[in-house]
């Protein structure tokens, strides 16, 4: 393979940036309604209690955040409600100055009290309120010394504070309304984002219209938007049939080809890496997966580089990477990655070594079950590929596909040999990305069941290291260790392919489908 996968990722990102730049160079036009599809529907409207893009895509346009990731320059964090901020020299406090004159959709002013109330709700949720990420923010203490200032004090040093505050789930709610009913965001929308809520037709659609008092004067450009809830297989026919013009999560290569075949001249295509991967989770509480040699051998039997080439044509699986997304600043460079078990480019040599390791571990004719979800894309091709790769070192695998809820039950209960799990988060920060590699003690999704406290210690250390260069060193060290111990091993990272109608401008693709969905910069050019 002459061009490396990383090279392809860089090229795709560059093409993306150029495409975006061209779109941005044009003068935005006002008006029109953006119709797009969402392939799932949120259970309720509360950002703080959600983990799904199904909430972000229709609901993000209603809310402002304190700060947000820049869609044009990910992972840069830019102001949203905050106008500026300063960080104390010791890194233990962040002071945000807020924009003045920001209003909620009901006309009430947004002040620092609203930011404080929203973050208090995330960090210490009142009874009955679900806050998914409270542990992530447990080191923060929020105060509002004056209406235009918010201060976040850290109880312990914490890396990536700004990135954590840029979470698309940290919607800012009204303090006054929260006081009346802390659970109002589950059923009502009252934000200060670019669009006001119009209607939610359950099972069908969600719509919003321009908020004329939005703080960023002149924006949004759209009159409104309508999100249609459809099944994944309805997206391509829906775009071709003119029911909607976009889907912002991602499509697979065949769907891209179908769309291009039908509407070549009317589409814009965005491609790049995705902050999602599929990983193999070895149940270390079961023999022989408690033996590092067996885990390494199973990882080494898989030709990730060949798999990347083959699977990327038929699925969203594409990029070879370790724990961190390939191309991300803190990830292991390819030259280092190829030295780790399972990443060598000479697969024959790697498989010979794998066989020897199995022999040394005293494992002969290994047979096990590979637990998987019954979702075709990308889980089925990934599992079929893994099963075939293991067959080549004499390992027999039975592929067991279950409905998601049954799969989740089995994985959480540790009732599996090896499972195919996915990692997805809104950002690349190692504190988020390593959550499934930790012990159960530190992470509820430490499904491999290992008790290696060293990895927890390394995790805590990087989490508390503010200096970026020092943290990168620690993260890479931890990545090397995690991939060598192979409690979980990434199989392949996903490619994000977005195909939208050419009339849509001002939308920028980031590596995360959770980000830059407030639609404030999006505009339509029917020509």
């Amino acid at each position, binding site marked *: 393979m002459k061009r490396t996968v990383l090279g392809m990722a860089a090229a795709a990102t560059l093409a993306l940036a150029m495409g975006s730049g061209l779109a941005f160079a044009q003068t935005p036009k006002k008006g029109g309604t953006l119709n797009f599809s969402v392939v799932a529907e949120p259970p309720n409207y509360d950002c703080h209690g959600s983990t799904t893009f199904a909430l972000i895509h229709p609901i993000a346009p209603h809310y402002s955040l304190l700060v947000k990731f820049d869609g044009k320059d990910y992972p840069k964090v830019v102001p949203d409600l905050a106008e500026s901020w300063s960080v104390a020299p010791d890194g233990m406090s962040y002071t945000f100055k807020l924009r003045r004159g920001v209003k909620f959709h009901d006309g009430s002013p947004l002040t620092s009290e609203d930011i404080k109330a929203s973050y208090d709700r995330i960090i210490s949720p009142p009874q009955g309120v679900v806050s998914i990420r409270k542990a992530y923010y447990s080191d923060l203490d929020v105060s509002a010394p004056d209406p235009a200032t918010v201060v976040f004090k850290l109880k312990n040093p914490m890396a990536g504070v700004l990135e954590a505050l840029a979470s698309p789930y940290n919607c800012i709610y009204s303090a006054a309304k929260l006081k009346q009913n802390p659970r109002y965001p589950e059923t009502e929308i009252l934000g200060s984002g670019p669009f006001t809520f119009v209607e939610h*037709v*359950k099972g069908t659609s969600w719509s919003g219209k321009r908020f004329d008092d939005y703080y960023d004067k002149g924006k949004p450009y759209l009159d409104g938007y309508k999100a249609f809830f459809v099944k994944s297989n309805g997206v391509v026919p829906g775009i071709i049939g003119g029911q909607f013009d976009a889907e912002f999560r991602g499509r697979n290569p065949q769907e891209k080809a179908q769309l291009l075949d039908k509407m070549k001249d009317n589409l814009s295509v965005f491609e790049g890496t995705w902050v999602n991967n599929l990983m193999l989770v070895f149940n270390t509480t079961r023999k022989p997966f408690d033996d590092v040699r067996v885990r390494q051998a199973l990882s080494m039997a898989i030709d990730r580089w060949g798999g990347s080439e083959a699977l990327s044509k038929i699925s969203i699986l594409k990029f070879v990477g370790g724990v961190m997304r390939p191309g991300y600043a803190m990830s292991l460079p390819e030259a280092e990655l190829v030295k780790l078990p399972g990443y060598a480019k000479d697969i024959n040599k790697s498989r010979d070594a794998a066989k020897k390791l199995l022999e040394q571990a005293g494992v002969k004719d290994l047979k096990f079950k590979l637990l998987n979800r019954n979702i075709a894309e990308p889980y089925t091709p990934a599992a079929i590929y893994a099963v075939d790769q293991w067959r080549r070192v004499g390992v027999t695998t039975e592929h067991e596909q279950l*409905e998601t*809820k049954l799969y989740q039950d089995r994985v959480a209960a540790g009732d599996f040999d090896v499972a195919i799990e996915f990692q997805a988060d809104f950002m690349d920060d190692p504190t988020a990305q390593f959550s499934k590699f930790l012990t159960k003690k530190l992470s509820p999704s430490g499904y491999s069941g290992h008790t290696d406290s060293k990895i927890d210690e390394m995790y805590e250390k990087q989490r508390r290291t503010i200096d970026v260069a020092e943290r990168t060193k620690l993260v890479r060290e931890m990545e090397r260790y995690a991939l060598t111990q192979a409690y979980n091993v990434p199989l392949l990272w996903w490619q994000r392919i977005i195909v939208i109608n050419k009339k849509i401008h001002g939308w920028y693709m980031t590596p995360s489908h959770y980000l830059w969905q407030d639609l404030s910069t999006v505009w339509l050019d029917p020509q």
Partner: protein
Amino acid sequence: MFWYLLRRLILVIPTLIGVAIAVFFLIRVMPGDVVVVKLRADGAAVSEETIEAERKRLGLDKPLYQQFADYMIGLPRLDLGKSLWTGEPVTKEIALRAPVSFQIAIMAGVIAILIAIPLGTLSALYRDSWIDHGIRVVAVSGLAIPSFWLGMLIILGLLSLFNWLPKIGYVPLWEDPITNLSVTIWPAASVGYRYAAVATRMMRSSLLEVMREDYIRTARAKGVWTRLIMRRHALRNAMLPVVTVIGLEFAFLIGGLVVTEQVFNINGIGKLFVDATARGDFNLIQGLVLFIATCFILINLAVDLLYGWLDPRIRLN
């Protein structure tokens, strides 16, 4: 007639109570936790403490007998509880989806009747002729082709020929008839074809049987026109089993359009059922089963009443 109707309606109550009890306990054998599915949907590392708190909030931590008592106490007040997924009352969730499912089922029924009665009659009248063979091919194809596949063909056809698909969403017929029909006609046609095939075959065999009856032979011997024999004597008698089939198929369509609704992006009862089952939303599943059971019972009752009208010899008492 009145007492018959009253007795049948009273009998609905113990039937529904039986269904409610069976569903409540059977459903809880189903593995999977709605809270885990909801909170860990996108693979988030959600703590056990958060999951337990949510289970408690939804009342899933209560002993089974207490959950059962709460459920049964709510039933007489038509309180089917709240959806564990959305938190909305189950009755509201069902009421939102029922109109579109009913409309598609009615339209499919009309399509079926319009096709089945003439085709079934022709097929029986010209038994073993090329007309009969042709109609039987059409009918057997209707049984063999799954409705959802026909639906997919319809969608592909619309896309290939017109680059067009019907609007997503349901607008009531009285608000905008054209939009309403442009949305509902396609799924109705795709399920209506199968529905028509079943009824056509039933119509044909039933009519053939009736045509062998003595009174038909007598009428023929008297020189009565075939058309008159059909209209006055044969058709009405042959309709009894056809009405049964049409009624049962109609009841089935209320909750049985599972895949077809997904193919056409129709937000109906079938889609709701699939979603509720995939998520393990017990309350919603219970409500839906009760709703569909009620539809079956009432449609059966209507069919029984129709028997009396079609054949006055049948006494409804």
